[in-house]
C-alpha cells in the first residue's frame, strides 16, 4: 500500500511540476491542481497509513489511542484542500482576466514570436 501511494503521489507531483512549467496558463492551473492533490495525499500519508481504523474517538474520551488513525493530518488536509481550492479559483479568475485583456493565454501575456 505504501508503494502504491508513493507512486501515486510521485506521478501526480511529477505531472504537476511539468505542467506548471508549461507556457499556457491552462496548463499551469491544471499543474497547480495536480500538485495540490499530490501534496494533500502526502500530508495524509504523514499520519501513517492505517487500514480499518476509526478516524474519530467515541464520546467519552480516550479509550485506546492506538486503535484510531491519527486525526491531525486529516484536519490539516481538510484545511489545505479548502485553501488550495480557493486560491486556485482566484487564480482562475485572474487567468481569465488576463486572457480577456491580453488576448492570449500565454503566461507572459504575449506570444513568443511577437
Amino acid at each position: 500500500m505504501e508503494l502504491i501511494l508513493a507512486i501515486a503521489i510521485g506521478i501526480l507531483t511529477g505531472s504537476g511540476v511539468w505542467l506548471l512549467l508549461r507556457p499556457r496558463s491552462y496548463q499551469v492551473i491544471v499543474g497547480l491542481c495536480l500538485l495540490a492533490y499530490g501534496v494533500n495525499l502526502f500530508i495524509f500519508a504523514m499520519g501513517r497509513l492505517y487500514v480499518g481504523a476509526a478516524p474519530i474517538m467515541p464520546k467519552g474520551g480516550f479509550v485506546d489511542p492506538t486503535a484510531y488513525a491519527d486525526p491531525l493530518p486529516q484536519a490539516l488536509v481538510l484545511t489545505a484542500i479548502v485553501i488550495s481550492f480557493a486560491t486556485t479559483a482566484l487564480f482562475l479568475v485572474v487567468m481569465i482576466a488576463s486572457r480577456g485583456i491580453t488576448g492570449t493565454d500565454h503566461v507572459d501575456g504575449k506570444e513568443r514570436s511577437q
Partner: protein
Amino acid sequence: MSPDTVPNHMLIAPILIPMVAGALMLFYNDRNRQTKLVMGLVAVGLMFLSSTELMTDAKSLTDQGETVVQLYRLGDWPVPVGIVLVLDRLSAMMVMLTALLAAPSLIYAAAGWHGKGQHYHSMFQFLLAGVNGAFLTGDLFNLFVFFEVMLAASYGLMLHGSGPDRIKAGLQYIAVNLAASLFFLIGVALVYGTTGSLNMADIGREIATLDDAQRLLFHAAAAFLGVAFLVKAAAWPLCFWLPPTYGAASPPAAAIMAIMTKVGVYVILRLSLLILGPGAGESAGFGAPVLMIGGVLTMGFGMIGIMGTPDLARKGGYLAIISSGTVLTAVGFAQAGSGAELLGGALYYLIGSTAAVSAFFLIAEPVSRDDEGEDDDAPAEEEPSKGDAQMWAWTPMGLDTVEDTPDPASARTVSWLTMAICFSLIAAMLAGLPPMPGFIGKFAMLRGAFQENISIAGHVPAMLWVFSAMLILCGLGSLIALIRFGIRRFWAEQGPSPRILALEIAPVLMLLGMLLLLTIRADAVLGYTRATATALLDPSIYRETVLHQAQRVDAAPVQNLAPDEMPVEEQQ
C-alpha cells in the same frame, strides 16, 4: 484550566481588530469610501495601541527577570495539541511595525487609489490580520493559514486598479506563491511526520532526540520550508517575481506589501534560531551557510537590479530585496554563532529599512508622475508609460507644448520641493548615510560582527568580510541609482511640476518622521533589538515557557500523539 493563569487577551487583539474591521466594512456599500477609510484608520489606531501594550508587556517581563514569553491558548486547548499565540519581543516589535506602516499607506490610498477598485479597505484589513497572525502564532500549521490569509488579501490588493500590467504581474505572482504554499505544506507535513508535533517550541525540543533516518527527513522538511519562506522573503534565486509585482501594484498596496517580504524574513529568523539553533544537537546550524551565501548573493542581485532598471517603482522592489538579503545574511551569521550584537543591529536595520522601502513606494508614483498638474484627482489617471519624447515634451526643446501654461518654465511648487527633499532623505536612508537610521543599523551590524569575532576568535572569518563589503557596496549602488534618478528628475527637468496632493505628501512625511525618531531614539531602539537578539539566541527560554505550561496539562488523559510512538498496524 487552572484559574491561576488568566490569559492575556490583548495578545489576540492585533489579529481580531483588523479582521472584524475588514468584515464590518463589507456591510457598507463600496461607494462609502470615506466611512470605510475612517473605520480602517480607527482599526489601525487600535491595532497600534494594542501593539504598544504588547510591547510594554514584552519589555516589562524581561525587566523583571522573568520569562520573556507570553502564551495565549486559542480555545484554551492544552499546549502541544492546541494552537498557541506566542508573544515575545520580536513578535511585539513586528506587530508594532505593521501598525506603523499601515497608517501612512491607508492615508495615501485616500488620495484616490482606494476608489480604483472594489473593497480596497477590507482587503487591506485582512492583509493586516494575516500579517499579525503570522507574527504572533506559535504553531506551524496555523502559520500556514495566516500566510494564506495574508496572501489571498495581497492578491486582491496587488490586482487593485486592474490593467494589463497588473494582471500580467499578478498572474505570475499568484502562480509563484501557490507553488511556494505547496512547498510550505510539504514541509509542514514532513515536520509532523518526523517530530509528531506542529508547535514550534515542541518541534525544537523533539529535534534533539531524532534518530538519523528521521533527522535526514527533518532536514528535508527544513529545506522545503526554507524554500517556501525564501520565496516570500525574496532571496536571490527565488526573487524574480518581486520587482515586476511591486512595480505594477498600486503605490499604497506596494507600501504595505513591503512588510510581507519581512514576514518571510521573520519566519526564517524565528524558526532557524528556535529549531535549528545551537540546542538542536546534530542539526544545529543547518541552513546557516545557505542563508549567509544566499543572503549575500541577494544583496548583490538587488544592487545590480537597482542600478539597471529605469523604473522607480521597480527600484523600490530591488531595495526591498537588498533589505531582505541583508537581514537574511545576518540571520545566517547569528545561527552560525556570531553573537547578539550583529543580530540586534540587523533587527534595527530591518525596522528602518522596511519603513524606508514603504515610504519609497509611496513617493515613487508622485515623483515620476507626468501629468503637468492639470488633473485634479491625480492618481485616478492610470497613464501608460510615455516614451522619452513625451516626457521631455515641455522642455525648451519642445516649446510648442508649454505655450498654454501660465507658469514660468521653471515653476516649482512647494509640494514638489517637499517631495524632492523627502526623496533625498529616503535615498540617504536606503543608502545608509549618516543622519538616517540606515547608517546606524549598518554600523551596528558591522561593529557587532567585527567586535565579537575579534574578541572571541581573534580573527574575522572570510564570509564576514564578504558581507561587510557587500553591505557597503549595496549602499553605494543604491546611492548611485537614486541620485542619478534624482538629478535627472528634480534638477535637469524644466517645466511645471506635477500636481501632488497633501494626502500624498503627509504619509511620506509620517514615515520620515518615524525614521527620524528612530535616529533620535537610536539608543533605546538598539537596546530593545539587542535584548531581542539575546533572547532569540537563547531559544530555551521560549521553549521552556511554552512547554512549561504544557506539562501542567499532561496530567490530563491527553497523550502525545506522535505517530512514531504508535504501534504501526500490520498492513493487509
